[in-house]
């Protein structure tokens, strides 16, 4: 209360706020409250302090650290925070500029000030160390082993004229130390973790993503002026000691990479363009759509470096390659071609990075020595020829289809009913969606719901059934090959309309259903964007319904085998057969065939057939990604 009275008094008595240079001659009078008020609610000030309007149209900063604010009410009062900032500078506190250099620069520019503060050595050191010449937003690709990285990750790279690996990166991360998995999920959903910006060497991120997690890194270089880059760095400096409440889906890494950038380019409303769930790849689209990107670079993962060199080998070279890696020894290393040596080195770097080799183990010691040997032999093969290899790829991540999807299907079933089936999917991608911008064989669907309007023969509305609700479905089709012997796995949590012998209702019953999948997948053919994927799972299934005939809980298991044929990025054919054996029911068979044609990036057509025991449906669908 006292604070409010003080603020009110300040406003009353401040028709003229005097901005002095603390002992210097310069004195700037800001002649009216109106001017201050206008500035306090300008986009520059609001974005610098990360204010957003809440549902009651009141301003609230997304920064949750009180240290960031000079006014006790600063989090919710842009005007008072501005007054306190001016007072702070007026007092010529030695640390004033050091603490808020971006605020100072903005106020100075706005009111044409010319105040000399003593230089801030730490800030100068930070700026001189990074030697930032341009900024890139780095996108490290999808990593399905970790929930926060399922959708990728973004961070800011400070580009200098030095060797790229000595550049710095600013990472926004949640401090999730010393929590268990359940705390991790709940804390992330409800904002219990603190999110910080942190400066670290870029090569650290390369090692983490490219080498350790085998994720590609894409660098989207931004079109910014020197002044904007300088302002960005100073603003980031201000943020280093502050924190945000971190929310996995909303105020996450991708969002706060944008929010920090937005302070330097306030004429863009970047964060306002984000969706209710902020995906890193969507923020790349925002940057590209706003014409803020002038170049895209690609740093492949160790796996992709190996795959690229392996795919360039001819049949004889592949034979030599396998003779080396299958036995971890080779007597004629001196005589094999350079391309095979390079591929073998890439293979061992990907498959057995030194940091995974404990040389006290005999086999690992053998591999380590072979790696050394390969490197040394390769060193003797050619004269030094210094040039940099450029990897190219067309899978630019921002070209992925939009993550929300609305579909409308028109079909007919074996009871001769026509039906209309609307479907909405909140996130993200299924195996049949276009692979443009998404080079992963995986399904990740969150909050998908569909229903069926049954029509009579005269096309009149007859009934409505809920068809499917997916809370979360993930299927990871790991290609099982000599270089990666990983199983495929997945789970499916939600509810669906059960149409088999578990119920005797004509149109089935809508029942909660959970499934786990374990199996193997294999890509038999891959040529650019065309491929042939075969998969085989064992599915464990549990469902519950009061309308089940015998036991209300039905437990079952059985195989699911299928294939996906891709003809380019935009034409896919998926078919699978599933047979489930239940403890208390007859087995059920299901066949599903879907062919999908992506006509443009965000529109596709489906032709689909479902066959469950003797019941079948066939339909035509139109899919809109938005």
């Amino acid at each position, binding site marked *: 209360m006292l604070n409010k009275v003080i603020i009110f008094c300040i406003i009353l008595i401040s028709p003229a706020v005097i901005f002095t240079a603390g002992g210097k001659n310069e004195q700037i009078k800001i002649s009216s409250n109106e001017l201050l008020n206008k500035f306090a609610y300008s986009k520059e000030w609001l974005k610098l302090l990360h204010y957003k309007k809440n549902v009651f149209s009141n301003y609230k900063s997304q920064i949750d650290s009180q240290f960031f604010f000079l006014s006790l009410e600063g989090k919710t009062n842009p005007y008072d925070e501005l007054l306190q900032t001016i007072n702070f500078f007026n007092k010529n506190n030695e640390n004033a500029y050091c603490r808020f250099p971006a605020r100072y620069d903005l106020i100075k520019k706005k009111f044409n000030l010319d105040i000399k503060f003593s230089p801030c050595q730490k800030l100068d050191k930070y700026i001189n160390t990074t030697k930032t010449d341009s900024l890139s937003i780095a996108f490290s690709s999808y990593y399905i*082993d*970790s*929930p926060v990285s399922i959708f990728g990750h973004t961070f800011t790279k400070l580009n200098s004229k030095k*060797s*790229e*690996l*000595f550049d710095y990166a600013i990472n926004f991360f949640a*401090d*999730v*130390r*010393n*929590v*268990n*998995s*359940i705390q*991790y999920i709940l804390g992330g959903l409800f904002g219990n973790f603190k999110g910080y910006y942190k400066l*670290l*060497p870029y*090569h*650290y991120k390369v*090692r983490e993503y490219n*080498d*350790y997690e085998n994720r590609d890194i894409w660098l989207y270089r931004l079109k910014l002026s020197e002044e904007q880059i300088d302002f960005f760095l100073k603003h980031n400096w201000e943020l280093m000691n502050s924190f945000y409440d971190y929310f996995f889906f909303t105020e996450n890494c991708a969002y706060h990479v944008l929010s920090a950038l937005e302070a330097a380019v306030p004429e863009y409303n970047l964060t306002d363009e984000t969706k209710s769930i902020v995906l890193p790849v969507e923020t790349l689209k925002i940057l590209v759509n706003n014409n803020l990107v002038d170049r895209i670079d690609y740093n492949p993962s160790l796996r992709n470096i190996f795959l690229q060199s392996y795919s360039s080998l001819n049949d004889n070279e592949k034979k030599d390659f396998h003779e080396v890696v299958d036995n971890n020894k080779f007597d004629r290393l001196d005589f094999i071609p350079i391309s095979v*040596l*390079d591929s073998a*080195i*890439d293979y061992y*770097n990907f498959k057995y*990075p*030194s*940091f*995974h080799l404990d040389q006290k183990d005999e086999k690992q010691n053998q591999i380590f020595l072979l*790696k*050394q040997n*390969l*490197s*040394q032999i*390769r*060193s003797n093969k*050619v*004269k*030094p*020829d*210094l*040039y*940099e*290899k450029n990897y190219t790829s067309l899978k630019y991540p921002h070209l992925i289809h939009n993550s929300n999807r609305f579909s409308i299907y028109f079909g007919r079933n074996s009871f001769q009913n026509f039906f209309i089936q609307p479907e909405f999917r909140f996130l993200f991608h299924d195996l049949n969606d276009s692979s443009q911008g998404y080079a992963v064989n995986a399904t990740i669907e969150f909050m998908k719901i569909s229903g069926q309007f049954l029509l009579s023969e005269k096309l009149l509305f007859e009934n409505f059934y809920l068809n499917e609700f997916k809370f979360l479905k993930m299927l990871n089709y790991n290609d099982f090959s000599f270089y990666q012997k990983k*199983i495929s*796995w997945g789970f499916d949590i939600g509810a669906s309309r059960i149409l088999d012998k578990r119920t005797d209702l004509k149109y089935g019953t809508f029942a909660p259903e959970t499934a*786990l999948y*374990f199996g193997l997948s294999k890509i038999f053919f891959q040529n650019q964007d065309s491929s042939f994927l075969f998969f085989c799972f*064992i599915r*464990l299934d549990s469902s519950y319904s009061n309308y089940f005939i015998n036991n209300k809980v039905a*437990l*079952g*298991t*059985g195989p699911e085998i299928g294939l996906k044929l891709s003809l380019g990025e935009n034409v896919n054919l998926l078919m699978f057969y599933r047979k489930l*054996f239940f*403890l208390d029911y007859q*087995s059920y068979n299901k066949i599903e065939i879907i062919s999908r044609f992506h006509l443009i990036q965000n529109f596709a057509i489906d032709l689909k057939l479902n066959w469950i025991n003797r019941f079948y449906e066939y339909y035509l669908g139109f899919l809109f990604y938005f």
Partner: protein
Amino acid sequence: MKQLISLLLLVVSSLVLVSCGSIVNGGKQEISIDSNIQGVEVELNGTKIGVTPLKYEVSRKSEEPLSFTLKKDGYTPQTVQLNSSISGWFWGNILIGGFFGSSTDYSTGGMYQYSPDNYFIEMQSSSAMETEKDKKSNYLRYFVLMNYDRIQKDISTGEGKYLDSLNEIYGKKNTADSIEFLFYLREVQHNSKTMMDFTNNLLTKI
């Protein structure tokens, strides 16, 4: 049919366990700690557990950070903290808990986490201030340990960003210097048997 289902469940359960075999393994994680000076005493939460180079098993389920202190006469004691973190194969971690290490990085004192379970602690003489050369050496050591494989490949092929970075650290700006330096690096590569060997040999010329 019930027998078939039971058999399938058993097979699938086995698959799950096999796939996480290296993770489950008794709920323990072995970490190794080494230092630039050998024979440094290591204490864990105040209790002496050995001297470097040291391998030590920690429980993954510990919710408390692990605090290691390294001491040796004539050197400034170093205390580093490892925190459990959720990373790696998360969906398995839901069942068995997290790991130590991944959230720990170089910035905590003189510690370099050059691999998921391996830490290198830089002990500094208590009698002398860190010079610019020391700083450069420390940074190079960190860079080389972290990126050993990539550096080896670039030295072998004579090209790449990691080689460029070494050229920059050693101030090799023109092509002739770079080529001469590459021959030096190849010599070091041939004469080094371990990562640590290679790193130490490289540091002699900085």
